[in-house]
């Protein structure tokens, strides 16, 4: 397959999330949008085109949000699993968790995503593009999140655990009722940063043929030739979504602190 334009490479995969097909072997790195972008004579006005493109932009935004939520959910599960394992007193469990964390932190999200999309099919496994994206986001950010969980658990004063031991609580109960509630309040701020980072990594999925917001707005850009307006709109939407996520996480942090009697926090 020849090197098409970045957008054209993706067009064949259809604009809606439901139309995701198996990844066709797309050759080479996708090319960026055309640089000499002077609007073609017949190009319709940006605002007029924006109006008719709104439903598709909505779908793209939905895909972006979907990838963010699913990726974050996977990352959260992995964060807890790896983070708690990394704080384990058993050497083998701790070592195993450390290897996984260092591996996914050390090998660049982009390489992980491209590996899942291009290299995995050569081993006989073929994932849908969106699944590749969610998996790569989840594994990568899960590894970063594991450090957050490990650090937060370690930051809970040892006397809290000791008091729970003195009360005869078993390890599971101790973790669930004493250590984690206090650790969780510490985790929310770093998790907020990771969540915004994850959101900002989702446009990458458009490179592996996922029709997300970036892809849809790029379509709008090539239809109208108004590059500045299209990309400014895209940046503004991402900025707005990031702001909404931050507000939600701030509310979560306040309520977690209030439950611990540390009201008025942050």
């Amino acid at each position, binding site marked *: 397959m020849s090197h098409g334009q*970045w957008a054209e490479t993706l067009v064949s995969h259809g604009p809606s999330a439901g139309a995701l097909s198996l990844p066709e*072997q797309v*050759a*080479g*790195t*996708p*090319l*960026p*949008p*055309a*640089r*000499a*972008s002077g609007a073609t004579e017949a190009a319709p006005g940006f605002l007029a085109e924006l109006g008719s493109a709104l439903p598709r932009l909505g779908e793209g935004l939905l895909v972006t949000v979907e990838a963010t939520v699913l990726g974050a959910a996977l990352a959260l599960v992995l964060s807890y699993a790896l983070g708690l394992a990394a704080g384990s007193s058993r050497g083998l469990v701790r070592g195993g968790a450390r290897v996984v964390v*260092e*591996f996914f*932190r*050390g*090998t*660049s*999200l*982009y*390489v*992980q995503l*491209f*590996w899942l999309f*291009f*290299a995995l*099919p*050569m*081993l006989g496994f073929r994932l849908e593009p969106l699944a590749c994206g969610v998996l790569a986001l989840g594994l990568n950010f899960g590894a970063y999140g594991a450090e957050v969980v490990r650090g937060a658990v370690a930051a809970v004063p040892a006397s809290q655990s000791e008091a729970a031991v003195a009360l005869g609580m078993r390890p599971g109960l101790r973790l669930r009722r004493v250590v984690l509630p206090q650790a969780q309040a510490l985790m929310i701020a770093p998790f907020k940063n990771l969540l*915004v980072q994850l*959101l*900002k*990594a*989702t*446009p*990458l999925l*458009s*490179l592996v043929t996922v029709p997300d917001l*970036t892809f849809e707005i*790029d379509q709008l850009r090539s239809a109208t030739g108004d*590059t*500045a307006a299209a*990309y*400014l709109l*895209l*940046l503004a939407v*991402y*900025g707005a979504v*990031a*702001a909404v996520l931050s507000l939600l996480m701030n509310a979560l942090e306040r309520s977690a602190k209030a439950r611990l009697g540390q009201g008025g926090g942050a």
Partner: protein
Amino acid sequence: MWDGDAALTALPVVLKGFGVTLAATVLGFVVAAVLGLVLAVVGRAAPRWVAAPVGGAAAFVRSTPLLVQLFAAWVLIPALDPLALGVLVLGVHYATYLSEVYRTGIDAVPKGQWEACTALSLPRHRTWRAVVLPQAVRNVLPPLGNYAVSLFKETPLLSVITVHEMVHEANTFGSTHFAYLESFTLAAAVFLLASWPTSLLVRRLEARLAH
């Protein structure tokens, strides 16, 4: 399945790309380190009508995706060569993070140091240059190192604006030899080999500065 011959052919190609990756990392980080310091000092020392809009713009850059910024810069600044453009966008993006890091470092310089400078009637610029910044920068060396590693791991994005860095080379090799498995696995290994020791070094530096 894994093809040893393909991997051997891919290795020099991937390593050649690694040179470009490394250049982009170093240059991008230099831009980020200098511009980040400027942003931090502007945030603390400039009058409000300058500091507020600059801070707002930095927050906006920080909360929007690098890929989109790259595409926007690519189309809007057509005169620049891809590598220079990539270095610039990476540098500006990371500068917005580093300014926050510098800011915490500046806040951590004891108040007495400022007061001593006032007592000695040191001019403002000498207070910053000779007293505050050297202490602030020393405090934040470990987080700066961590951001350098993060920047390194984001350089593959430059492949989308035709910079022939490592992932671009791996991708091209994979498509022409149908050896994605070998080329991308090698690229991942090189990333791991380069970033992991650096992370360890940063962690050691962090431990030493903590004492």
